[in-house]
Each structure stands twice: as structure tokens, then as C-alpha cells.
């Protein structure tokens, strides 16, 4: 069962057009407060976690079928060069194939990881990172109650404490201006990664 979760502090107003357009046959939930992101330590979208029939995590949070090839996009007309497009499509297909393999074979799938491997790959937040989450939460609370300007201070502090969270960064930008999350600030932040990955993917897919 897929469960799609929108990390959108803008609530239904932000998420609804996309969900309606997708005509989903599975639950599409709206997570204004990024609760699921905190519970599973997700720092970007799309991030996925695989959970088996017993409610056990068999793949911890990881980028879901995406790759850094999007960085080759033309930033004016959003065109993606052919080689980058092939890479993106191949990554998506490999991920979907892995997911189907797990659905068919369950724990016998090589993509359903054993406990030691899940624990090895899993990241858990430290004291600074949970402080970032509390700042984001207070910012979201102030925003939800009509204090957008005052909320910014807390969003900025969350970003300062956990700069690797694209969720904090881009959500805050989007609340200022929906275009900002994909605008010059976004690309400058992506460029500042240098050789670092925007989507640090799994080794086996």
C-alpha cells in the first residue's frame, strides 16, 4: 500500500491541485507540520521508507528513485539535456523495479534489508537536529496563526542548525513566495553543495 505524504505547511491549498491531478487510488495525506519528516528523519522530498507486514522498517529513509542529474537542467527554460534525462529515467525505473521485487518476494527480495543493514544505513537526529525541528515547529505554529513575518526567524534558525534539510529551506521559501523554492536561492544552495549530493542515494538501487 503506497501512502503519499505532502510536507506542506500551506495545507490543502498548496497540496490539493497536485493530488487532484494525480487521481490517486491510495491515501494522499497532508502533513502541515512535517510530522512524518521528524519521525523518520527525512530531510528532502521525495524520500521513502519501506515497512513490512509486521510494521518493521526494511529500508530506512532514502531518496526515492531520483538522482542529481536534475542539476544539469537549463535554469531558464527548465529543459533537461538528453543524457541527464536518460539518467533520471534509469534511476526511476531501477527504483520502481526494486519496489516491485519487494512486493513480489517480500523478505526474500534482496532490496528488503536485514536488521543490521537497516541500522547501518539509518540516520538518527542529534541534539542540534532536534533543536532545529523544535524551531521549525514553532515557526510553523506562528505561520499557521497568521504571523508569517515572525515565523521567519524560527525557520531561519532551523535552517542554520540543520542546513542539510532541504525541507526546512524550501518550505520556508515557499511560504514567502511559491516561486522562491525553485528560484535563484534554491539553485545557489544546490551549487554550494559542490561535489556533495542533493540526493544521497542508496548503494544497491
Amino acid at each position, binding site marked *: *500500500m503506497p*501512502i*503519499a*505524504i*505532502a*510536507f*506542506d505547511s*500551506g495545507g*490543502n491549498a498548496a*497540496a490539493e*491541485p*497536485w493530488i487532484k491531478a494525480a487521481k490517486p487510488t491510495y*491515501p*494522499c*495525506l*497532508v502533513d502541515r507540520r512535517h510530522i*512524518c519528516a*521528524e*519521525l*523518520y*528523519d*527525512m530531510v528532502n*522530498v*521525495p*524520500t*521513502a*521508507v*519501506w*515497512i*513490512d*507486514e509486521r*510494521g*518493521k*522498517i526494511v529500508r530506512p529513509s532514502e531518496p*526515492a528513485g531520483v538522482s542529481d542529474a536534475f542539476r544539469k537542467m537549463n535554469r531558464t527554460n527548465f529543459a533537461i539535456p538528453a543524457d541527464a534525462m536518460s539518467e533520471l529515467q534509469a534511476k526511476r525505473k531501477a527504483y520502481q523495479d526494486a*519496489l516491485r521485487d*519487494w512486493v513480489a518476494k*517480500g523478505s526474500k527480495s534482496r532490496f528488503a534489508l536485514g*536488521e543490521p543493514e*537497516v541500522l547501518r544505513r*539509518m540516520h*538518527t*537526529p*542529534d*541534539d542540534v537536529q*532536534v*533543536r532545529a*525541528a*523544535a524551531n521549525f*515547529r*514553532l515557526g510553523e*505554529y*506562528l505561520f499557521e496563526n497568521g504571523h508569517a513575518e*515572525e515565523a521567519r526567524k*524560527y525557520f531561519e*534558525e532551523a535552517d542554520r542548525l540543520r542546513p542539510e534539510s532541504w*525541507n526546512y529551506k*524550501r*518550505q520556508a521559501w515557499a511560504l514567502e513566495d*511559491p516561486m522562491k523554492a525553485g528560484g535563484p536561492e534554491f539553485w545557489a544552495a544546490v551549487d554550494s553543495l559542490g561535489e556533495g549530493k542533493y540526493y544521497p542515494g542508496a548503494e544497491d538501487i
Partner: protein
Amino acid sequence: MAIDIIYGERVATGVDADARDGELWLCAGDLKQVSGWEYKPQGFCKGDVCVPVPDARKSKFVAEGRDGVRYNLAALANLLGQPVVTDAEFGAWCFGEAAAERKRMLTSLDAPDFSLPDLDGRMHSLSEYRGKKVFVVSWASW
């Protein structure tokens, strides 16, 4: 004074609390309602879990207030390793989850449960899907 308290997924508005110098003093009823914690002879308790209060620093946690005994939720948070972020202007206090608790939950490999609404406001919990494989995937409009 009236304080808004965000405590994990709980939100309580207009709580009658004494806030000063990084301390937040609540009466027993509000302490339980806001945080789920209660003060007992063995310390602060929630469900089966009790956290003893260091004797030497007891006055930092429990004190006689203007209208009976009050409890310092900020000191308890500090003891539990929870982050606390406050906005004095709005009288808002946000208590996050401790890193150790997040780690305990995740490394148990039991998928943490959540309840979130769909577009119609109907709540869905992860635990409803026990017995099926679940693929939880995030996205965003931004």
C-alpha cells in the same frame, strides 16, 4: 499569564502558567493535560515510565506557587534532553522530542506511527495498514 504550549504533537493555548527566566511553572492539572506527565512520590511519571528528580535540585522542579504547588515543565524538559524554543512576544513555548527518544524509536525498527488527514480531513494512521507492506513516500508542492 496565558501561554501557548506546543508539546510534541499536543498544542495547548492560553495555559495559565508562570514563565520567567527560562522556567515554565504549571499546576498539576495543566502539567498532565499539556505534557502527559504527572508528579508522584517517585518523580515525574508518564504511563509506566518514571523519572526521578534529583533531591538536591528538587526546588527547580517543584515549588509552592501563588495558588498551590506548581511544576517547572522547562526543567523536566532539560532533564529529559528535550529541546525548548520560546517566543516571549507571543508567549509561545515549543517542546520538541529528545534526540535519545527519536533514536530509541527509530532503532527499534518498529515504524513510528502517525495520523494525518487526507484532503477531506479524514484521518489515516500508519497502524491501520498493519498486515500489508507499506511504501511511505514524501513529496511537496514546492
